């Protein structure tokens, strides 16, 4: 049975290891990997290889070559490298290849060696060049850290949301650090670097010297450091062969070890020992491999989720396989098949050899009304590839009209966008398009476009009412809307401070109302102009504010101040109806307490409002004496009420009895008090009884 253990070798006292081959690499590399730039993507992703990177002689035969292999060494794609000198290769979490040039330019390729975009790490890097670079992954995405020729660090935490950070200077740093690493702690990205026997920590604002706990004082100078994938653990290697292992926060030491080899290792990495789930550090030299570790703490690595697996298949354009996996796993359509089809469609629109019709048709055939499919997203991709017509065709399949709008705007199909926005019923979207159109079209065309879209027009009017009043006028002018123009000028007249300005605005309104054949409004405006002019005179003559009063209040104020002639003049000039004038005058006179004038007025001619109001107004001002003067002049029908008002119950009773009106009698009776009005009450009761007998 010893054949089972034959290939196991002891590692320390408790552990054993063995070597066996998982699979053979398919590639046949002639070059030594040592001479290439190499980057392997995490989670068994692709491997990128840059051959002939070190250009010693500039002959075309030795031009650099970028090759991408699958993890098993199958060549996926290759291109001759025509850009600048590369310093470092690295993969993003979404399997894009980052090629970092010595001038700080970072070029991004997909795994088929197709160029996607590029960005720069900034001027400082451009000037001082890249000495070393590292690609790192945090919860924010993929980042890039650069050590420049001036021995300064620059980094970008997330290349998809590029914010360059230049780290503070390390005091006295004259040569490159012996080793450095990027750490992510409490959502902050920091750099740890070693210079001789010193360890420095660089954060956004400061540089500080740190000492790992339990570090042997005779450890010597640091040569190498390794950070675990999740940034929890740190291993340090010094020139005495000493290895320190602990938390990356430098708060705790796990263990230490002194190896017999003291030369700098080629590689040092953290790994997880299978089954025991113990962390360990593997150190590799040219011909030696060492595993160090005794910790018992567990770390859970995040596994590759099914979504990521599908993404990877999609990235490799293995659409049918991905769909079959979805079907097998019975993933919901939105999560599974739809997503893959959408990716497929986005790839499809890039096929330049097929006509727009063919592509659009093919996509619609396959996608149909699959839930979760966004035709607008596919169309956006088509537009990005420069296929505007195809994009428009694809948008036609988008059932949610609102979704079509942003892309249509981007493609400068604003009028189409306007129609779609209105169709969507989303006012805000209509606004978006209208204001977009306003900036894009010249004024004439813009107005014409709005004329055909009442919803949009009314929205724009709303906007103008508050923001661009002059434009409002132009809008009305364009469709000869004289009524609204008239209203516009009336409105403006209120903001005119000077009376001439106000009259001017009203004059404009008047013209428009005439054009609109709105005689009523014209007459009213004319009257207002007349009134304004009059009020100015009044103000000058009497040194009292008259401006902005209504006609009624103007006349009323004149009477209150005793200017009866002027009041009379306005009454005639503005053809104030008699009834109004009488109401107005008696209440103003009563307010003024001018009872003499009131009486005179009552006798001036027959009152068009009768004499009950005279009684009422006098009573209201607690002047029964005056009120009594008018009570007899009140018409017989209202006389009972009038006598009750002035408190003459006896006369009221007589009037009611004369009318033989039971309701009136009851009304007077209800006002009688037993102690003082007994006689009246008796009279009424008698009359009522008599009335009922009949």
């Amino acid at each position, binding site marked *: 049975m010893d054949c089972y253990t034959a290939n196991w070798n002891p590692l320390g006292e408790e552990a054993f290891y063995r070597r066996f081959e998982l699979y053979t690499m398919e590639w046949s590399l002639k070059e030594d990997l040592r001479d290439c730039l190499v980057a392997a993507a995490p989670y068994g992703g692709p491997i990128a290889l840059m051959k002939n990177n070190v250009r010693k002689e500039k002959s075309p035969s030795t031009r650099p070559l970028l090759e991408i292999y699958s993890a098993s060494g199958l060549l996926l794609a290759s291109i001759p490298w025509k850009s600048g000198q590369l310093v470092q290769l690295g993969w993003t979490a979404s399997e894009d290849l980052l090629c970092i040039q010595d001038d700080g330019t970072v070029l991004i390729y997909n795994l088929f060696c197709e160029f996607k975009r590029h960005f720069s790490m900034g001027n400082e890097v451009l000037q001082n060049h890249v000495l070393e670079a590292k690609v790192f992954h945090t919860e924010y995405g993929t980042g890039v850290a650069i050590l420049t020729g001036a021995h300064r660090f620059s980094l970008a935490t997330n290349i998809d949301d590029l914010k360059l950070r230049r780290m503070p200077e390390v005091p006295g740093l004259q040569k490159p650090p012996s080793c450095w690493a990027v750490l992510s702690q409490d959502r902050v990205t920091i750099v740890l670097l070693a210079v001789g026997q010193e360890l420095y920590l660089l954060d956004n604002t400061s540089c500080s010297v740190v000492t790992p706990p339990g570090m042997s004082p005779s450890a010597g100078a640091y040569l190498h450091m390794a950070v675990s994938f999740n940034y929890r653990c740190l291993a340090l290697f010094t020139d005495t062969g000493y290895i320190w292992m602990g938390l990356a926060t430098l708060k705790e030491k796990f263990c230490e070890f002194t190896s017999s080899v003291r030369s700098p290792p080629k590689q040092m990495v953290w790994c997880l020992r299978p089954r025991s789930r113990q962390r360990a550090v593997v150190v590799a030299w040219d011909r030696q491999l060492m595993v160090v570790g005794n910790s018992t703490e567990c770390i859970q690595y995040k596994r590759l989720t099914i979504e990521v697996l599908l993404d990877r298949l999609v990235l490799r354009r293995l659409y049918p396989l991905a769909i079959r996996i979805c079907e097998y796993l019975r993933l919901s359509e939105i999560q599974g098949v739809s997503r893959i089809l959408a990716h497929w469609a986005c790839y499809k629109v890039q096929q330049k050899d097929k006509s727009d019709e063919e592509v659009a048709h093919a996509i619609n055939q396959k996608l149909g009304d699959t*839930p979760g499919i966004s035709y607008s997203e596919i169309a956006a991709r088509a537009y990005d590839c420069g296929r505007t017509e195809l994009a428009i065709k694809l948008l036609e399949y988008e059932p*949610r009209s609102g979704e079509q709008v942003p892309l249509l705007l981007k493609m400068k199909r604003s009028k189409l966008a306007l129609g779609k926005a*209105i*169709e969507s*019923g*989303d*006012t*805000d*979207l209509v*606004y*978006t398009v209208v*204001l977009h159109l306003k900036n894009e079209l010249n004024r004439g065309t813009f107005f014409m476009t709005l004329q055909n879209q*009442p*919803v949009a*027009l*009314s*929205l724009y009017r*709303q*906007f103008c009412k*508050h*923001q661009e009043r002059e434009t409002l006028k132009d809008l009305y002018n364009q469709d000869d809307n004289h*009524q609204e123009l008239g*209203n516009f000028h*009336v*409105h403006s007249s*209120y*903001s005119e401070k000077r009376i001439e300005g106000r009259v001017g605005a009203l004059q404009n309104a008047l013209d428009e109302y005439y054009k609109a054949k709105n005689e*009523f*409004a014209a007459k*009213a*405006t004319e*009257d*207002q102009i007349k*009134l304004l002019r009059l009020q100015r005179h009044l103000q000058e003559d009497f040194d009292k504010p008259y401006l*902005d*009063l*209504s*006609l*009624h209040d103007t006349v009323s104020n004149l009477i209150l101040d005793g200017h009866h002639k002027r009041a009379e003049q306005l009454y005639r000039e*503005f053809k*104030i*109806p008699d*009834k*109004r004038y009488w*109401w*107005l005058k008696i*209440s103003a006179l009563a307010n003024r307490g001018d009872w003499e004038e009131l009486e005179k007025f009552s006798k001036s001619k027959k009152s068009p409002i009768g004499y009950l109001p005279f009684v009422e107004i006098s009573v209201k001002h607690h002047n029964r004496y005056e009120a009594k003067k008018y009570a007899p002049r009140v018409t017989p029908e209202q006389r009972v009420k009038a006598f009750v008002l002035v408190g003459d119950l006896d006369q009221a009773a007589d009037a009611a009895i004369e009318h033989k009106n039971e309701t009136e009698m009851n009304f007077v009776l209800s006002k009688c008090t037993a102690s003082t009005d007994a006689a009246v009450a008796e009279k009424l009761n008698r009359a009522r009884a008599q009335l009922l007998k009949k």
Partner: protein
Amino acid sequence: MAFAGRRDVPEPPDFGILKRLARDQLIYLLEQQHEVDKLYKVDSRPALSTSDQFCFLVRPRIKTMRYIADIVNADKMSGRSRKYKIIFSPQKFYACEMVLEEEGVFGDVTCDEWSFYLLPLDEDIISMELPEFFRDYFLEGDHRWINSVARALQLLNSLYGPFGKAYGIGRCAKMSYELWRDLEEESESDGQGRKPEIGNIFLMDRDMDYVTALCSQVVYEGLVDDTFRIKCGSVDFGPDVTSSDKSIKVLLNAQDKVFSQIRNEHFSSVFGFLSQKSRNLQAQYDRRRGMDIKQMKNFVSQELKGLKQEHRLLSLHIGACESIMKKKTKQDFQEMIKAEHSLLEGVDVRESTSFIEEHIDRQVSPIESLRLMCLLSITENGLIPKDYRSLKTQYLQSYGPEHLLTFHNLKRVGLLTEQAAGETLTAVESKVSKLVTDRAAGKITDAFNSLARKSNFRAISKKLGLIPRVDGEYDLKMPRDMAYVFSGAYIPLSCKIIEQVLERRGWLGLEEVVRLLNGNEFSVSDSTVEDNPTWESQRVILAVFLGGCTFSEIAALRFLGKERGCKFIFLTTAITNSARMMEAMIEAKA
């Protein structure tokens, strides 16, 4: 809390109450986390503050944006640097950002949204607190709030399950319903498949029935609203009510034991009820006599507090009644009610017109005069040209020429119109109905719709029997129909329509009424909802009023619910009444 104060829109929601309601959600957060030191109301004056951060909680209005931009620019001019945050409720509009950009302050502010759609005012009333809806939609033809309505429906749908039957009438009702359906389809929310709790929904545009909203209210809650203005479910009772020197803010809802018993009553029976109630209360207090120590202890610890509370409320409502009586028992009010009833019935029109004219001439009240003019116009299918001119002239002479614009607004929404000379009614009608039934026309704006609208009130009233026949006295204490909310003179049209449609489970048999109302009716059954008549939800109806509903309508439907054994829940863009509606139309000097 900051809402734009605009003189030509209805009053903004009550500052204090909203602040109180928002505390849990927003203000609390602001105060706790950001140490807000003072709250200001957005008005015409910029707030003076030394604080280095400003947070604006606003409606998405252009005018408000300008106000904010002015503050920011003024700060910039004086070299002061502050942080500005704008929180839009219920949502941010692109036009607002555009204004900020044009005013050059877009980069200086940060924006957020507070998706505040529903404010429960009571057990059965949910308000969207959008008083501006009425003017924005019906006058300006602005569709912006339709989206908010659709979202509110979506929210209710997600909370209470799908509505089995949906009915509605009015263009806005239709658009809101359709937009909501689209939202549901897009979101594929998990509300589907839930057991429905609200079986029926009925959406109605305010312009289907202006008459009811224009009438003087005489049920207690409506009268309190007309007299004191209820804001966000609470009212400020002034010194004349509290008979002290200070005002008291009172929440009016079902929790108020006194109020809940009188809110739906005709005012004439409220006083009697209150005095009976105070006698009962006295009797309960009197029980103290003859109690032993233990009973007394029980009484004090358990009952006294409740009695005192009730006592307090009782005296407040009695005070309110007295105050109302003082104002309303005057001759004028009686005459006004009489005139209103004549208008509703269509009798003595000349007399009523003279009454209105006198009302204007005597400058009794600008809002009331306007309301009566509108009521006359809408019940008579427009004023005859002579009256139209003379009443308007009188009004302008009384209240100033700026109301020329007010009249323009009123004409536009169809509240105050002139009978078209030379054009017979039927010709106008057919023109309108052609315009409205045309699908494409449905999509275009309502800018035209109101211009051509005729109320057809008289014909509708006859068809639906809105004026009850009077044989003998109408017993307001024991009402026999919804007419009691208007002293037995008139059954509110809006409520009658809802009653009829629910009874018929659709519009069948109401074709003529629908035609007179200019159509846009719908009736949809949700096929995914099982139609189980035994379910309690079948008896629950969500009545949605777009453009506001009045307390009279709420009272009428509560009455109907009691009669028919069903329950109405109200969702309204805001609580309205005649004065609010008129104020929304008034064009004040800017």
